[in-house]
């Protein structure tokens, strides 16, 4: 839905011309956003963050669910 809204706001023309995804291939991005999306797609959060979070969140009590969730679900 949001994606639809944003694309309707002036980026319909965005097309990616992408050659083979082999290493060192030339890729063409028609917008900065396309380039950043490509970069984001190949950037994963390190697994160490999840391990640290599991430890640090164990020091705190489980938070209660948001009030509206408790009310409506």
């Amino acid at each position, binding site marked *: 839905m*949001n*994606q639809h*809204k*944003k694309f309707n*706001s*002036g980026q319909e023309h965005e097309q990616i*011309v992408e050659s083979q*995804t*082999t*290493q*060192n*291939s*030339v*890729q*063409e*991005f*028609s*917008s*900065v*956003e*396309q*380039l*950043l*999306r490509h*970069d*984001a797609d*190949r*950037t*994963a*959060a*390190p697994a*160490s*963050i*999840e391990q*640290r*979070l*599991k430890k*640090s*969140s*164990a*020091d*705190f*009590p*489980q*938070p*209660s*669910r*948001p*009030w*509206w*969730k*408790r009310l409506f679900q």
Partner: protein
Amino acid sequence: MNEPMAERERECPDQTQPGWASSEFADLYAEHSRAIFYLALRFLGDPQKAEDATHDVFLKAFRKMDQFRGEASWRTWLYRIAINHCRNLQQSWNERHMFSNADEAIWENAVAQSESPLRVLETKELGERIQTALDALPDEYRLLLLLIADEQLSYEEVGTLTEQSADAVRGKLHRARKAFAVLFKKTE
């Protein structure tokens, strides 16, 4: 009597348990951690700081989950925490240069260079080139580009996150794209 843990969790989701036992929070992390880490990485420009920031953002989210009012999406809520956190870090480090009108004049004169497609040789250095270009941008432009690149966010949501109207976002994005394109070409 000795019913399985998962069974008890389903029946009593609000009871105090070790943190990650909350499947809702684990799901939240699985769905949004990549986006939050990417924002922190490219906004702060340092993988270790981005890792620490992502950890801190999700820990804060875990502790404040009960304050989430459902007025925005989880993604937007997490982005808000992340933006505040990264801005606070930046202020304390004082690592970035101040943006001036003189800088803006440079971007405005760069139209011709920025309207051609970005041709990129796919190498492991691509991330470094992107980071170099982003680092040279004013914070506001860098943040706008990173947020708008997330297809889950609308212009309206980006405007809310950056405290401006959607039209203002569109106007600034136009300049931000041009500025990035110029800086990116310089990294070749």
